[in-house]
């Protein structure tokens, strides 16, 4: 493991540091409960009127919402703030002085940042929406466990791949931030793109028929739509494996593309300020 030691250390340091922010986790949890409740009410209204037209059952839609709210911080919808900071202050110079693969070093750190923000909120959400809601008699609106053992087992790699893919997208955003010395432009474009095309806003099967073949193949589908449909067994067996392959394929493509972009960006990097 000597090869991986620096990357694991970089991941762990960022993860531990981010875990300290308990108030941020609680605030995030509260916000996500609020939005989750609103979105569930919207779904309920829709199912009340057009249940027959819906591609998934209401119970699955509710689980989809809770799962999405729980793992919202895994979505790469803003660039890693540490990178913006490092390029503006010139701290990126020290990153160049580490005897490490530059892409891998940033990837490990961004991964630590994402997971440390997501996991505490997911745990709180699991307790709140998965345990407390059924106990208080709101079981119909609760976050349900995976639909069967196969779904649960398949969700493990799907979750790992959605995290890896998310970090790969985040790295592209980080690289653009580093090249432009500013994260505003990137975030303004990235946020709506990720929220819509991942299926975070609405499951992709709710979009018009003509768009769906494209929506199911584009990379952001692997961030939300594919893993969540594996979770409640809407994607099963062969379809689930296809989904996993799509997630893995896009992760490899985006990592490869990110590495090239990073190489180019670093070649023309200038260290700011003296």
């Amino acid at each position: 493991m000597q090869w991986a030691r620096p990357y694991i250390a970089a991941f762990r340091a960022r993860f531990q540091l981010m875990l300290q922010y308990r108030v941020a986790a609680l605030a995030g949890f509260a916000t996500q409960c609020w939005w989750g409740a609103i979105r569930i009410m919207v779904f309920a209204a829709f199912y009340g009127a057009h249940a027959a037209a819906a591609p998934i059952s209401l119970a699955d839609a509710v689980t989809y919402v809770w799962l999405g709210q729980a793992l919202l911080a895994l979505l790469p919808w803003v660039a890693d703030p540490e990178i913006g900071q490092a390029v503006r202050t010139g701290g990126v110079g020290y990153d160049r002085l580490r005897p490490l693969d530059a892409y891998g070093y940033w990837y490990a750190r961004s991964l630590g940042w994402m997971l440390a923000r997501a996991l505490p909120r997911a745990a709180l959400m699991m307790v709140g929406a998965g345990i407390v809601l059924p106990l208080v008699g709101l079981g119909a609106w609760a976050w349900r466990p995976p639909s069967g053992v196969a779904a649960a087992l398949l969700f493990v790699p799907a979750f790992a791949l959605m995290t890896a893919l998310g970090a790969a997208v985040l790295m592209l955003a980080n690289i653009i931030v580093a090249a432009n010395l500013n994260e505003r432009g990137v975030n303004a474009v990235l946020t709506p793109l990720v929220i819509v095309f991942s299926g975070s806003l609405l499951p992709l099967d709710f979009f018009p028929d003509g768009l769906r073949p494209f929506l199911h193949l584009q990379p952001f589908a692997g961030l939300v739509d594919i893993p969540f449909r594996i979770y409640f067994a809407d994607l099963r067996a062969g379809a689930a494996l296809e989904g996993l392959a799509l997630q893995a394929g896009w992760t490899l493509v985006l990592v490869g593309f990110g590495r090239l972009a990073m190489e180019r960006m670093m070649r023309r990097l200038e260290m700011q300020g003296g």
Partner: protein
Amino acid sequence: MPQILVEALAKTYRVAERAPGLVGAVRGLLRRRWREVHALVDVSFSLEAGELLAFIGPNGAGKSTTVKILSGILRPSSGRVEVGGLVPYEDRVRHVARIGVVFGQRSQLWWDLPVLDGFDLLADIYRVAPARYRRRRDELVAMLRLAPLLDQPVRQLSLGQRMRAEFAAALLHDPSILFLDEPTIGLDAPSKLAVREFVRRLNREQGVTVLLTTHDMHDVEALAERVIVIGQGRLLTDGPFESLRAGVLAERRLYIDFAGPAPELEMRGVTVRSRTECSLELAFDPAQIPTPKLIAAIATKHAVEDVHVDEPAIEEVITRFYDLHDLHEARETRAARKA
């Protein structure tokens, strides 16, 4: 084969330029004009293992650019650089594992982590074997008196404490070359002395090659056997400081206290720099009048109470050198000249 070899190094930046004011800003949106800034022009030098070299020069002269190229952060526009047989920006990963760098104006430790955690993290990043790391860390902690600071988060340290921790951070992986970019900037006098003492020990006792840039002439006086002056991106002189002094400002100063009122002195090659009622400060060229001869000539004619001879301060020598080469705030004047 020298440890560091630099030949005909050049670095040119392209800078977007626009006329001032709103009109200029709007015009800049439509058509951007670029100006080339020559940060380094044809710089060549070499350094043997175990040497200690100081880079001096006014702000914007190209010192930091040189350090950044040598450490592998920047790639030059042209020229050849080899450090320990490697080209820093081509073979970055292998190169940076063998060097340590301290930028006086930045921090490489983690702001929110205790100092010791930062050291542990660096040991992981540089893949230092645990036993070797502990030995090296303890040695550095003792040399830099860091023991009381180890459990404090970096953000709580004073600048002097933080710089000591930064030095340890740069040396945990036992590099054979150390680059220091303005390591004493902003430090108080005791911290500066501590840093200089540490750098000297590292160089003398452990044979670490040191290349430092500084504006503090006392750093140069205390540390460097060899000085390179760089200005407007060009290497202006390279050698022991004493030969720079001899070429620029060879004069000596003679301070005399008289028993009575200070006399009028008319001697060839001697000028009076200042006088009070009973004392004189003279400037003279020892090549024209040897010091003993001058003192003897004055003491035979006048009642002298006390004398001492001094050289101009190092700051004065450097200021004179910059004046001779028209080197104040290099970049601005060049820009103004082009416009």
